[in-house]
């Protein structure tokens, strides 16, 4: 054990509860350090961060596409109107030319 933490048998003047608490704290700190090292070693955060950055760069493209799609919807309504008009006019012309 590290010299900073008392040995579990060296100071029996402390209560068993105190020893247990110290032991639990030491184990918790060790587990935290181990987990940090594992996460750093697996490089998962780097990969995921890079993927997120790429996604953010495409936001602009996504917005542009959405805009274009809205305009296309308007154009389709216009075209429908034109078609109706032209069919009416065609009927009238046929009637006139008879």
């Amino acid at each position, binding site marked *: 054990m590290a010299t900073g933490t008392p*040995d*579990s*048998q060296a100071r*029996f003047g402390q209560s*068993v509860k105190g*020893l*247990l608490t110290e*032991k639990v704290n030491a184990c918790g700190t060790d587990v935290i350090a*181990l987990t940090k*090292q*594992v*996460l750093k*070693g*697996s*490089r*998962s*955060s780097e*990969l*995921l961060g*890079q*993927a*997120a950055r*790429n*996604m953010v760069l*495409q936001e602009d*493209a*996504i917005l*542009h*596409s959405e805009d*274009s*799609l809205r*305009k*296309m919807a308007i*154009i*389709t309504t*216009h*075209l429908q109107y*034109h078609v109706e*008009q*032209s069919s009416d*006019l065609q009927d*009238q*012309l046929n009637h*006139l030319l008879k």
Partner: protein
Amino acid sequence: MTGIIKTWIKCPIGGSCLKGTHHHTGKGLTPGAVLALRRAGSLRLRGPSRLRQSPRPPSDLGWELSNPELKAARCRRRQPASRKERACDAGAMTPSPAKHRAKMDDIVVVAQGSQASRNVSNDPDVIKLQEIPTFQPLLKGLLSGQTSPTNAKLEKLDSQQVLQLCLRYQDHLHQCAEAVAFDQNALVKRIKEMDLSVETLFSFMQERQKRYAKYAEQIQKVNEMSAILRRIQMGIDQTVPLMERLNSLLPEGERLEPFSMKPDREPQL
């Protein structure tokens, strides 16, 4: 004159008794007196005993000694655990006066104790105690006191196995992150493709809309022209009868030709 010769002897506790019997009524017998009487010979008590009660629970109901053999048998029956009973077993008839108080023979049972619930295996508390499983304390070093091997051996994990575990977990995380990043990059590519296709479609539609707008405009012009022509036709239809009437009102020499709109004739001025 025949009479029964009665032999009187001196009683150890005082007074005189007939030989062979010791009748003492109305007297409280101390254990010392009882011992003396026993030493002297057979002893029979009648009536309620007024001896001091021994603290140990006696096993006999009565307190009757009429035979030294019976007394020895009774001594053997009892638990030969104590020093006092061993003296009884040995058949020693001369315990010290200080110990006579503790003899089993002096014990008088007032009430029979109940022994049934005192057996070991019937007690529910004992059974519950026996059902508790064996367990180790949390800090094993404190169990044995100050010995050093327990300090080192019982609390550590195997480093190689822990290393393998951590490496496996790290590899797992790496693979998961790679899979997620791969899917995300595929999505980004698809978004770019979608963006391009949407742009081309939009441009097509814009072109078509412009063409159709031109066509619609031309058709509208045609429509207007046809309306104008109809109006003209109506006007002419209204005007020509009036012109004919006017022409008929004129004298014969100045009448004009009948009006017609046919283009192959020259217009009449």
